[in-house]
């Protein structure tokens, strides 16, 4: 009955090619490894070049310090506990601000989906808030939020909230009109459409905002520490900078980066939880 040319691949039995998934997983983990390797090469290369430049005199250590100096300082500061404590303080401020700001901003931004009118009214004020250089308002910040940890959390929150808000709002605007219409056809209330379609389908936008906000909340907390502080990495950098202690400034900056990694891998975990369905079935 078969007119078809017989396959020259003759299989003893049609077992699934057992390796496929494992092969994929292996390829994936090989790639992950390669990614890390290249990252390390780049980072090491960067530091090596810098160190070499510093030793050979091509790079002024006065202006740019050198990896070995920064490293020595790091060891000393880790030993006496000030670096860890500073990172802990700034990390906590950042985390608090990040969580509050992201939640608040996302809630407001998604909420604006409910009312186009309100959204249009608010847009101007959101924009206005987004363009204020908080640092300029140092005195007002101190008056409103004091000089304690609240002021840093407040600034970290403020730095997050606008990105979270605008992204959530944009995400809500991009929702597939066909899906909202589908739910409408089932007699869904606006509230149901909101929870069942708008929230899930803006999730990529919200997560993208969170990725950005790791950096912003950190900068917010640091600016808060600039305005007034006794502890934290921002305080450390501020003092080091004013003292022209470039090594310490750079140590502070690198510590901030490590903090940012820690926070962002946390966001990454959340992303994989929230957006798992995107990875399925493709």
């Amino acid at each position, binding site marked *: 009955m078969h007119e078809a040319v017989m396959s020259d691949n003759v299989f003893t039995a049609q077992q699934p090619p057992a390796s496929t998934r494992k092969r994929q997983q292996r390829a994936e983990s090989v790639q992950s490894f390669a990614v890390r390797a290249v990252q390390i090469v780049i980072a090491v290369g960067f530091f090596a070049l810098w160190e070499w430049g510093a030793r050979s005199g091509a790079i002024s250590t006065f202006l740019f310090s050198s990896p070995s100096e920064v490293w020595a300082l790091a060891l000393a500061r880790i030993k006496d506990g000030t670096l860890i404590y500073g990172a802990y303080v700034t990390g906590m401020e950042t985390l608090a601000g990040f969580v509050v700001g992201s939640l608040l901003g996302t809630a407001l931004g998604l909420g604006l989906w409910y009312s186009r009118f309100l959204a249009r009214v608010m847009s101007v004020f959101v924009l206005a808030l987004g363009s204020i250089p908080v640092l300029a308002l140092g005195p007002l910040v101190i008056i409103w939020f004091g000089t304690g940890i609240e002021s840093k959390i407040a600034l970290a929150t403020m730095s997050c909230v606008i990105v979270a808000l605008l992204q959530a709002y944009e995400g809500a605007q991009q929702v597939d009109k066909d899906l909202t219409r589908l*739910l*409408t056809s*089932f007699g*869904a209330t606006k509230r149901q459409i909101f929870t069942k379609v708008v929230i899930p389908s803006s999730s990529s936008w919200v997560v993208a905002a969170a990725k950005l906000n790791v950096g912003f909340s950190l900068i917010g907390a640091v600016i808060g520490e600039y305005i007034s502080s006794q502890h934290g990495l921002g305080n450390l950098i501020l003092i080091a900078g004013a003292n022209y202690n470039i090594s310490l400034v750079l140590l502070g900056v690198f510590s901030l980066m490590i903090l940012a990694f820690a926070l962002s891998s946390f966001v990454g975990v959340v992303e994989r939880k929230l957006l798992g*369905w995107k990875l399925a079935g493709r």
Partner: protein
Amino acid sequence: MKSTPNRARVEVRGVSKWFETEDGQVQALHDVNLTVLDHEFTCIVGPSGCGKSTLFNIIAGLVEPSRGQILVDGVPIKVGMAGRLGYMQQKDLLIPWRTILRNVTIGLEIQGRPEGESREVAMRYLKMFGLAKHADSFPASLSGGMKQRVALIRTLVMGQDIILMDEPFQSLDYPTRVALEAELLEMVQELNRTVLFVTHDIEEAVSIADKVYVLSKGPGTVRDLRTIRLNMKRESPIDARKSPEFHEHYAAIWNQLEVVTNIRRESQHA
């Protein structure tokens, strides 16, 4: 088999619809009038683009008519009052981040039905349509016909007694399609549902409908109404297809449609 079908359930009164486009207004429907009686299975056929889906959107309360009104059980339908009628849209829109099971239960969820119950009903239908093993898959991994069956189930589980179906079987293979037609007819009769059904398949229309409305080429308006009722006397739509009246109805509708369909045949190909 049917109770006296005389009460008007859905009345479409003088409905016209214009869409706003960049180059001005486009008319999709022109003074459409039709009535669906209780327990009746009404088909609508008409050329592509004549406004069938638009009409359904209007009846379902998703789109506002430019003129005229819709009465359901004598009460005028307003936009925003959707959910009163069951509606299976032409596009098999599944929600990509929900599993098949949860795609099916979305409507029940919206009605606030208890989850366990919804799940059970949904699973029963999924089994019936041969999709039980896909209950936990995501839509992206389904074939075209499977997606359409899911969309159909999603409408059926809702249990409203008036149902609008816009080409529900269009991506199904023939035997499945015929089997589902029979299934649907049986279900409709057993549960006393009233159905309004768009199809582009005249055979399908003639074999399952009580009445067939033929719409003219867009802007659509009612061009013909045929009372059929072959389905009443037969065991299944397959048998209906074998009856002598079948060909009569078929030919009549065909002619109606062919007149309005107008595909030009300048055979100058590239």
